[in-house]
């Protein structure tokens, strides 16, 4: 069995499952701060109830994010030891910073937010929510810095033995790729949070349960959704695409299915890439749009795959579909959220059952889009681990043979299947209980009494 393939599947499976949880918690962290702010300003208890309810959802997702996240950090060493040995001095920096600056903060104040409400003033509880938000968004930045360095290595020099050495700390932290990728990624996670919140509001309205809370969920979800689904496309997605075309042109060509260089290149909306004959089957094209989107003029030449040796081609069909699924869904998000926002402003959203159904059925889509987006980034970087410098087949642990790798991959698959079932069961349980629990009856109390 192919060792490299096992190690790649190992990472792909565990990271894909892991990221289902942080994308919601990072998005929800922001929305909970919004709810707490509304509670502080309007003094309306319904916002506090909403924040408490989403805090419980956050808590379940957070803990699954933690337990599936620890294996991610370990896997750099266990499965990608040659890579770790070469790059630890560089990307080890943001990894440690994530621990000491973000995780300590997040874990400390999450406990306080979830269980300390009775002990804190309303303003104090707002601060707990805010610091959880800061912690989770900081952790996102540090891990994006690590990934961005692999996509677009900066601020390093390479020793004769192949080890990368950091030359500028600020250069690493201010990698332009990281800034763009971070904006795009965080906006994507707010979209997940917004769709989940609005979707649950739609569900409750359709069920005619917890109607007042449902309206808050819908309103906050749709307003956040419309803002961030637009930001997702422009400027963050647009910038990311332009930056990628300049620094990873072969990836851009493969994502877009552009086999031959062309001035005034068209964009492929639909179609299946036929790598053997180097063409797109059943294409639905819009002329000149790709040139315009990447270089700002309709006549610019966009490099096709024919300009690059096949050894540096990524997996074209997989990348092409990941990218097209991400972009297609991103477009749908704008359409759904803009329509919902119009209905909201005309005060007709809560009665528009067809729209509530659309929002409800859309809940899984941001998860798919975020996953497809990360697949685009990571498959697009292939065959490199560190772009242009270190190949993926030079990075894995040669001392861990495929039998052991498969053993633990199967172990993770079994473990995570169990976690997924447990997760869905618990979410269903929380959703059935709804947001009307009293403070102090079951939660939100510090476990202290006798001194």
């Amino acid at each position, binding site marked *: 069995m192919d060792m490299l393939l096992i190690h790649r599947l190992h990472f792909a499976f565990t990271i894909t499952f892991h990221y289902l949880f942080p994308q919601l918690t990072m998005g929800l962290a922001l929305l909970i701060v919004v709810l707490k702010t509304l509670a502080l300003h309007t003094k309306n208890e319904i916002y506090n109830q909403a924040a408490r309810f989403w805090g419980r959802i956050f808590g379940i997702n957070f803990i699954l994010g933690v337990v599936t996240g620890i294996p991610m950090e370990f896997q750099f060493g266990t499965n990608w030891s040659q890579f770790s040995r070469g790059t630890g001095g560089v990307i080890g920096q943001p990894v*440690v910073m994530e621990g000491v600056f973000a995780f300590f903060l997040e874990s400390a104040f999450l406990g306080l937010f979830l269980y300390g409400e009775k002990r804190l003033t309303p303003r104090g509880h707002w601060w707990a929510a805010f610091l959880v938000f800061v912690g989770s968004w900081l952790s996102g930045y540090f891990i994006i810095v690590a990934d961005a360095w692999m996509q677009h290595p900066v601020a390093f020099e390479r020793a004769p033995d192949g*080890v990368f050495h*950091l030359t500028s700390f600020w250069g690493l932290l201010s990698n332009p790729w990281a800034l763009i990728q971070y904006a795009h990624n965080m906006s994507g996670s707010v979209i997940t949070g917004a769709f989940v919140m609005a979707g649950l509001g739609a569900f409750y309205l359709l069920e005619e349960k917890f109607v007042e809370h449902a309206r808050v969920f819908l309103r906050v979800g749709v307003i956040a959704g419309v803002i961030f689904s637009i930001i997702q496309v422009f400027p963050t997605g647009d910038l990311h695409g332009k930056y990628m075309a300049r620094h990873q042109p072969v990836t851009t060509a493969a994502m877009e299915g552009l086999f031959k260089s062309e001035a005034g290149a068209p964009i492929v909306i639909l179609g299946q890439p036929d790598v053997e004959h180097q063409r797109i089957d059943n294409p639905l094209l819009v002329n000149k749009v790709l040139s315009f989107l990447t270089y700002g003029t309709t006549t610019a030449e966009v490099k096709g795959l024919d300009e690059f040796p096949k050894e540096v081609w990524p997996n074209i069909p997989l990348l092409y579909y990941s990218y097209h699924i991400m972009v297609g869904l991103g477009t749908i998000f704008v359409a759904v959220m803009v329509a919902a926002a119009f209905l909201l402003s005309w005060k007709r959203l809560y009665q528009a059952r067809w729209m509530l159904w659309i929002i409800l059925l859309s809940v899984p889509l941001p998860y798919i889009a975020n996953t497809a987006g990360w697949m685009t980034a990571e498959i697009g970087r292939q065959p490199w681990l560190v772009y242009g410098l270190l190949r993926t087949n030079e990075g894995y*642990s040669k001392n861990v043979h495929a039998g*052991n790798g498969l053993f633990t991959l199967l172990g993770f698959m079994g473990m995570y299947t169990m976690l997924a079932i447990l997760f869905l069961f618990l979410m269903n349980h929380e959703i059935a209980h709804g947001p009307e629990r009293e403070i102090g009856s079951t939660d939100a109390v510090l476990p202290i009494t006798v001194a």
Partner: protein
Amino acid sequence: MLFIWFWLVAAMITAYVMLDGFDLGAGILHLWIAKTDAERRTVIRTVGPVWDGNEVALIAGGGTLFFAFPLLYASGFSGFYLPLMIILWLLVLRGIGIELRMHLNSPVWRGFFDGCFAISSFLLALFYGVALGNVIRGVPLQKDGYFFLPLWTDWRVGPEPGVLDWYTVIAGLIALVALTIHGAHYVAVKTSGDLNLRSRRLASAFWLVLVLLTFISLWSTLSIRPELLANYRRHTFLYGVPVIVAASLAAMFVYRRKGNDKAAFLASSAYLLFMLVGAAAAMYPNLLVSSTEPALNITVYNAASGSYALSIGLIFWSLGMLIALGYFVFIYRMFKGKVSAGGGHGYAD
């Protein structure tokens, strides 16, 4: 600089053992001392608000290793592949055992989560000890700096050992007993009534076992790796460390007798701290020793990152840990005092 980073890594690991140690211990005791649902809820509530922060020390420790000594991280993590993966699975079980229990009000589910919490805590304590035993014993490092250990071979301390052999099993047992006592002291501090009584009784019962195991482990360590005394011979003040370990064992006994739970908890913290300091002081400058050829040892000199990275790291690491220390003080103060046994509210409802 290398000396500082060696001790910073050691400090992270020690902090992790002392902090997560008491909630692991609470988990080991969980099914044992807590009989009713209310008591189990109480035990979970003693660790509930803090265990996650304690576990961040593991993440930060792993990150620090990755960043400061990439070769050690790469070689050690891939070489100990199987036991590490098992530890990861146990950490998953433990996390859900503690945190998800309160979401379901069903005796069957609560039994399931209690089982997850207790069994995973037990096995983790054992495995952490085994891991430390492996680092002290050494591994068959190859010329390229890598190795791969099977879970067991012939259970002997030879040139081709497995993760488990008689020596590492002793190390596992001492960790298990030490963390059980540490956890019992913590639960005693945080509870009153029956739980407090049972924890105290358990801590006293295991004390003699811990004393015996401490001597056995010292003797067996020096019999398989006599060269570990070299640093002690060079810097005789290091002999103070085993003296403090002995003193902390005595203090545990005295304060247990006097019924001073807090002092007993501090004594078991000091025991863990100085056992690990003693081991680290014996290891330096080695990070991972070869069981076949001393020239292949991974040391601070051949494993460290570049000096620029380490200098910058020292600044942000110290700053970050200082802030983190602030959170810890703040959170432990917020959650100080005993957890009530009754009451229908709180963390684990």
